[in-house]
């Protein structure tokens, strides 16, 4: 009996082990978020958002089988968001989380990884953000960050060339290391005319994840290049239609790589057109219409080609698991870089230092706040040339109104800049000080300490002329503000925008919190004498 029992036991263990092995090894059904790489794609061109798969979150990319050759991570269109967008907590994205994620994949899954980026690292440098100089420094920082993350390729993008074509190319030259392992800027249809730039700008690059060899190329939209306002752009960069070069580049990559990837810096329609025209490409990376990309790629050529987008603002990554056997299915997962990664943030420490210390130090060193280009406050007539006087001056005649303001968060607006060490960051200073973008407005904490925080004159305009002539009715009527004006003309939304008020800015709720109508009386003759405000 005992004997029988032990044999039974052994048999049972073996059978069970065999069952587990068979189930584990031949479970051909891919995870539900795996898109068949070969064969028909039933949802070609369709939104597959709906059918989310079972997810085990116990490890990064939990749905990916262990025996992959490696993982390709795709990012792009960060458009200046090196950190989660805005200053409100709970936002997604940021390079620190990106590094945290890659480090987790390395340590927990042990896969080889290759990283590529679609470009558009920065926003329009002439837009209302931190200004041209800050955007330049941010671009350098982004290049250093992608070098730190061991990116293989970054697509050349029209958005990044808006720094000035020569400027952008020079930054590639100076900010990317001159060695084989450094990221290469990729553009098949843009040729630099200087040899110097040719060391950084390549028509294609080859990289690998384990045994799988990847060939990566990119094209930029000639129409978008034509739109760049730079008289010297074609002195340094010759751009031709993608169709002139892609057949040759693709044929070259097919000689010695297993997976061919095309990044398209142009409209989504252009990416689809090129994907359909050149079926040799396995993965097409397109720009995104939305911040949030689709949870699954579209498929072309019966599922052979994936059309991948990664959204905007650096909130997402696309992860593609590449099997050792090229005939097996690739696997796709969209990665949301949200706060779940913050508990592992020590793994992003090098990136934290780059973004929170080195970048900020570079901004301070370049004095981007002090040198921000100012403009005249847009009013005419008697108020032309008025300067900012600060809330303490206003208080002299409007003490109750001042106290009302003092009770609002607007009065505390400078504190976060100190707490988060962002006094040198023009993009932050813009909304946390008074009159920053205007002549006579905030210049620095030492030069204009009376203009820290979000004070009276951000809404009413510079007040020196009113302070000097308080009974001038024309001036008074000009600086008076109404709820209707603020609501209709979106004045609050200039700062309380989608990034900084992600859950919505409800004017009707917020206006009463700052409204201060008729809190003071002006019986004291002194308030009618006027104040010669300090310049």
């Amino acid at each position: 009996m005992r004997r029988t029992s032990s044999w039974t036991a052994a048999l049972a263990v073996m059978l069970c082990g065999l069952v587990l092995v068979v189930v584990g090894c031949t479970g051909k059904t891919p995870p539900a978020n795996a898109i068949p790489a070969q064969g028909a794609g039933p949802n070609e061109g369709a939104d597959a958002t709906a059918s989310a798969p079972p997810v085990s979150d116990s490890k990064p990319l939990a749905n990916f089988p262990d025996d992959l050759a490696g993982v390709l991570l795709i990012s792009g269109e960060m458009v200046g968001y090196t950190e989660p967008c805005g200053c409100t907590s709970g936002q997604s994205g940021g390079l620190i989380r990106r590094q945290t994620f890659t480090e987790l994949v390395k340590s927990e899954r042990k896969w080889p990884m290759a990283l590529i980026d679609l470009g558009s690292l920065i926003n329009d440098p002439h837009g209302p953000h931190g200004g041209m100089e800050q955007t330049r420094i941010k671009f350098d920082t982004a290049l250093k960050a992608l070098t730190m993350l061991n990116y293989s390729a970054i697509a050349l993008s029209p958005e990044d060339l808006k720094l000035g074509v020569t400027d952008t190319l020079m930054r590639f030259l100076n900010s990317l290391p001159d060695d084989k392992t450094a990221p290469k800027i990729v553009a098949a249809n843009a040729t630099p005319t200087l040899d110097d730039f040719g060391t950084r700008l390549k028509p294609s690059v080859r990289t690998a994840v384990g045994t799988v060899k990847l060939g990566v190329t990119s094209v930029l939209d000639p129409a978008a290049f034509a739109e760049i306002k730079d008289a010297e752009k074609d002195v340094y960069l010759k751009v031709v239609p993608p169709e002139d070069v892609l057949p040759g580049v693709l044929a070259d990559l097919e000689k010695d790589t297993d997976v061919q990837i095309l990044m398209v810096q142009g409209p989504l329609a252009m990416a689809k057109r090129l994907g359909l025209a050149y079926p040799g490409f396995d993965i097409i990376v397109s720009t995104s219409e939305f911040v949030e990309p689709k949870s699954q790629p579209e498929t072309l050529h019966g599922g052979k080609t994936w059309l991948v987008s990664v959204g905007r603002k650096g909130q997402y990554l696309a992860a593609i698991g590449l099997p050792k056997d090229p005939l097996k299915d690739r696997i796709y997962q969209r990665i949301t870089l949200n706060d779940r990664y913050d508990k592992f943030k020590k793994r992003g420490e090098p990136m934290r230092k780059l973004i929170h210390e080195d970048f900020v130090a570079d901004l301070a060193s370049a004095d981007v706040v002090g040198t921000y280009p100012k403009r005249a406050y847009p009013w005419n007539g008697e108020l032309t040339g008025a300067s900012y006087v600060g809330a303490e001056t206003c208080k002299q005649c409007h003490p109750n109104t001042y106290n009302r303001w003092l009770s609002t968060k607007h009065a505390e607006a400078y504190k976060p800049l100190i707490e988060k060490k962002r006094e040198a960051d023009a993009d932050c200073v813009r909304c946390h000080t008074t009159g920053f973008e205007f002549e006579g407005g905030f210049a620095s904490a030492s030069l204009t300490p009376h203009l820290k925080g979000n004070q009276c004159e951000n809404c009413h305009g510079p007040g020196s002329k009113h302070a000097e002539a308080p009974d001038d009715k024309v001036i008074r009527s000009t600086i008076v503000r109404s709820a209707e004006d603020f609501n209709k003309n979106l004045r609050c939304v200039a700062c309380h925008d989608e990034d900084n008020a992600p859950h919505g800015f409800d004017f009707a709720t917020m206006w009463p919190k700052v409204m201060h109508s008729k809190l003071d009386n002006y019986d004291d003759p002194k308030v009618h004498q006027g104040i010669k405000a300090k310049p």
Partner: protein
Amino acid sequence: MSSQDVQHVGKAQGLPSESSSFLKWLVASVIIVALAAGAAIGVRYLPTENPNDTSTLSFPVPKKRAGPPGKIVLDESPTYVFGVMPQRSKGTHTWTFKNGGEGVLELSKGPSTCSCTIANFKSEKDVLVLEPGKSTEINLTWETREFDGKFEKSATINVVGDADRSQVIFAVEGTVKPSMAIMPKERTLSFGDVPNDASRKVSFALASSDMPEFKILTVTSSQPDAFNIETVPLPDDERQQLNWTTMTGGFKVNVELKPSKELGSFNEEIIVTTDHPKVAEIRLSAGGRRSGPVSIVPQVVQMHNIAPADGGVQTLMVIVRNGEDTTLEVLDAPENVKVEIASADLKSGSAVKVRQFRVTVTVPPGTPSGVISGEITLKSNHPRAERLKIPVDISVLSSN
């Protein structure tokens, strides 16, 4: 591995009937193998590497429930199309989410890009238990605010207890059509790099979806001397190009930056007032840079945290527009900064010929630690740029 997994394998005895002892051993073996596998997985994902890293390595694991599974049943597709919406409006859609299985489901809110409410949820971290046969409502709200164009927003509901899926992504999509369409949508007029002796024209367009006959009352700028501004009716072909096919009327505003003696970046504003009752005023930023006949790229030599053993190198390009005969030489540089003019070439594009100088700035290895500031001075024979000064901002780390 959870007890549920073990039960599943045990129940998979649709195998031919065996002796009871075999079954016992089979079950025991499954447990042993499962424990061994679980231990292996556990060991594999134990905290590793940095002993000072106190964070655990596991993300919150969606737990599987013991017992029979529940089943998510939706009354319609989880993607709902709102269609066209005006700005400052709110779209709401409600799905009925039923548990059509035999076991309970646990629902919790995952990442979302829109406002998402679930009936009976008390807080963001709340978990709603849905008994078999019961339903709840998932409500997605999208506020268009000042958004312009196509949108897609989603909310994730994490599910525990369904054998087939652990989350459902609900999405809403559509197009927001503002009362006043503006192109560029970002309201930024980018003039780029403009030679200061030249002008450059940038245009923007306006059209109204609900008041095609609106009028522009004024167009002014924060720097009236800097711009010529002209307003014309929006040509039909350009309206088509903008894909404003459902609108009529509209205006095109041409903003021409005038030549100026001023150099450097500018950041002005264009202000449009209209008779549209909802859009009385529109502000667009107008930015760019006026450059002289000579451009230095980059404009500052900035090398921070140089390792003293390695030194540092930065390359600059001095570009002289239409200055084929220009010469350049190094006049002065801060101590420990070596400046060389490495090459001088003539280049031409479709609009301009340039003489370009490649300048190499080197901080030699062995340079003492500290900050190097000051200016590099270059001398040229160009009548409008006899001296070129390049700020230097260099820091060399301590050799320790």
